[in-house]
């Protein structure tokens, strides 16, 4: 043990040696971290969870995000969920820990002329006739990378060589006219991460998800080519001045474990539709939600009587659904707060004849907030890019 006056020299010794020789002094401090699909692909190899944080100690299993193949490639998983009382699904290509806010970044689409009614009508073309690749400036090596973009249309001058426009710097230096478009969600990806050979479907209902979910081979970031997924437009909102993206709550339903800490049930998460306890109705004109692409995970701590519905384990309840013209898969994993009987006054709603109406379902932001109250809804430090591809029981736009 060092004498007290010798211990005082430790910091000085630390300064003179390699930094790693001393214990980090970061207890209790924020540790901002971003996982893009490049990082999640690596986590698949190592098998370690991503987005581990004190508020979400189990983190997220990378296999939930990507499905690995034997050849080292992987496909983007469709993750089942519920939202506004109906089946939903999303993809989750990026995660952040300890980010209080995330911003939109500019994404430039090159056009030869501006048409405000149809901005993409005049997409600039490569020599082979394909659309010129879009350009962005903040890549996934930066913690400021964001898959949430404000699209701008940059008008090339007549006779311009489109192959020269591979960075935002060139667009500014040439003082191209720039017109704002819609916000879009695009996630950059390794070449070996794709959507798969067959059109993606809802994991339970096996019906197609949104047609806009797509894969493109090339965007330009600082002169470097990078593939990306297209995950929909206008599926988030942001502050026009600060460019800060507004969060949607994504509820992880949990119960108290033996030690009193929340233990997730492993059930499909529930996508909210507005700020917590705002009572805001879902903004989804034409069944296309304007929320969800950026969410914060909340632990929603349900009572001990809560459980997720499994049609295979409750065939009588499943039969009631079928008799009512409902596919039992539309309830798979949906959590009811009164599913099991513990106290004599409890009712086990999965076995009641009035199933499913006799259940207190935790399948929307409103029902979770009303049933559990603010004290049982705990924000985590984990946020995610979670664009919905299935909403209201069907693929968006289908």
């Amino acid at each position, binding site marked *: 043990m060092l004498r007290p006056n010798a211990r005082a020299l430790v910091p000085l010794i630390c300064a003179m040696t390699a930094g790693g020789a001393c214990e980090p002094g970061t207890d209790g401090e924020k540790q901002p971290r971003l996982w893009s699909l490049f990082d999640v692909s690596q986590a698949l190899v190592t098998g370690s969870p991503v987005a581990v944080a004190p508020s979400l100690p189990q983190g997220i299993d990378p296999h939930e995000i990507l499905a690995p193949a034997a050849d080292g490639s992987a496909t983007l998983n469709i993750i089942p969920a519920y939202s506004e009382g109906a089946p939903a699904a999303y993809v989750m290509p990026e995660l952040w820990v300890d980010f209080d806010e995330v911003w939109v970044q*500019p994404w430039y689409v090159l056009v030869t002329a501006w048409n405000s009614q149809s901005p993409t009508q005049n997409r600039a073309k490569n020599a082979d006739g394909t659309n010129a690749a879009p350009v962005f400036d*903040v890549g996934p090596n930066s913690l400021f990378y964001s898959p949430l973009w404000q699209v701008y249309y940059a008008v090339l001058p007549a006779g311009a060589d489109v192959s020269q426009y591979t960075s935002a710097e060139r667009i500014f230096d040439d003082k191209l006219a720039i017109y704002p478009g819609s916000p879009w969600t695009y996630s950059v990806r390794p070449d070996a991460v794709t959507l798969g050979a067959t059109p993606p479907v809802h994991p339970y209902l096996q019906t197609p998800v949104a047609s806009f979910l797509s894969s493109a081979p090339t965007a330009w970031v600082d002169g470097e080519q990078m593939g990306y997924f297209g995950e929909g437009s206008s599926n988030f909102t942001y502050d026009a001045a600060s460019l800060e993206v507004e969060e949607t709550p994504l509820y992880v339903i949990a119960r108290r474990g033996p030690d009193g800490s929340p233990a997730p049930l492993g059930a499909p998460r529930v996508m909210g539709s507005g700020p917590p306890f705002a009572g805001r109705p879902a903004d989804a004109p034409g069944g296309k939600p304007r929320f969800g692409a950026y969410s914060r995970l909340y632990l929603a701590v349900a009572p001990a009587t809560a459980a997720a519905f499994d049609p295979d384990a409750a065939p009588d309840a499943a039969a009631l659904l079928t008799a009512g013209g409902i596919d039992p898969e539309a309830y798979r994993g949906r959590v009811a707060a009164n599913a099991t009987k513990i106290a004599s006054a409890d009712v086990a709603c999965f076995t009641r004849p009035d199933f499913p109406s006799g259940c207190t379902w935790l399948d929307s932001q409103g029902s979770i907030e009303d049933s559990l109250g603010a004290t049982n809804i705990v924000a985590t430090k984990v946020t995610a890019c979670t664009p919905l591809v299935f909403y209201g029981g069907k693929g968006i736009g289908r």
Partner: protein
Amino acid sequence: MRGRSGRRPRSALIWAVLAAARAAATGQVRAETSVETPVPAPTGELDPEDFDTQPEGFVLPSGTPMAPPLTLMGYVDFGFADAGGDGTSFPPGDNRVPADYGVDTFAPAVNSRGDVASIDAGGRATNGFLPRSVNIGGRPSFLLNTVSQDLRYQSTHVPVMAFVRIQALPRWGGDGRGNVADLLVAQAFGRVTPFEGREFFVSGGKFDSVFGIEYLETEANYRTGITPSLMARYTTGTALGLKGFYRKQIARLWSAVSLNVAATNGSNFVESLQPTDASLTGVPLLSARLGYELDLPRAQLKLGGSGLRGPRNDQFDRSALLEMFGFDARLYFAGVSLSGEYVHVDEEEGAGGKQTGAAAYLIASAFHARGFWGQAAYGVPIPFGPLRVVTPYVRYEQRHAWFEGFRPITVARVTGGLRAELSEALIVKVEFLLNQELAGAPQVDNNVFTTSVVYTW
């Protein structure tokens, strides 16, 4: 053999007498912020270093007037500035976040503190790589850049000196923020000379940088021109801690070597980029400069190499290192002053967010910078009229820097100006900054015309 050893004592005595006489006559004693001094602006005056000659090394003749133990010094820097565009380096239409990572926010400097005309990013988020601002945007404005008051106490009985520099910075805070006037303790330290007759000093407190040479002319009354270089943000900040200086004269070679070493809370980044008054990691940064001087009768050459290493003090992780090194050179002959510096900066990514002297920010990104500046000045004595010396000067500099994950940017600047000394107490300077974005950053109108009138007491 007739050499330096036979000349130096008499020379030192002459300089000391002149210095003491000047101090007594004007009350102007150079702030004893460091024993290492710049090649001076070619004013035709004595080298400021000679005013710093230590009393332990010689004995003044009886009857020589002495500077009083307590000395008050100071200056007012009043200016007028006009920056191009909106006074920032943010190009119109640029919507990247953070706004300060893809441009050089320090480029449109308007005064000797390196304050810029504006840092208004139009509401876009920034991440703490910002200078201080006078918030004039692209509108020409008079400015009271600095009101600086020094207090220096030199004990007559023990070899101890105390120095305090307080500065008031009256500013308009920007839209909706009203008037703000920061009161800054720029320096406050005590200095001990442990061995009589040796150029060995130990200082404790808040003091000048030991890295490079540009810190020597941070203050408006010492700087040849007006604005600092593009690399000054990394080397001219004051630091809180302990410092030691030793210089050995090698008389037969007309030379001296010196070593300046410091252990401080933070680095020598300017205060807007990091807090200086507390250690955020509990581990000090070590910095040092090894210098060589060649003092010929008609010319003076100074060379130096600097290094700095330790945890970056804008975050809490003591394993996130800041490493810097640099080289400097100064040559003074026939009224011509040449000086230059190369600086190399590497910062590892930190943890726990970023804490600057201005606010807290989200991420302490990994960062790298390389750059240099070179300056030439020529002092023309004016033997008639109110002018004493007129000094035209020109400086060229380049800075190449990048934050992790962001495109590297390369910027350059040509600074030209004229300095006129109307009396010992009045300096007038006029300067133009031609800022250039060479690569990585969009071109933007951010050139600056600025002036400075410095009243000294």
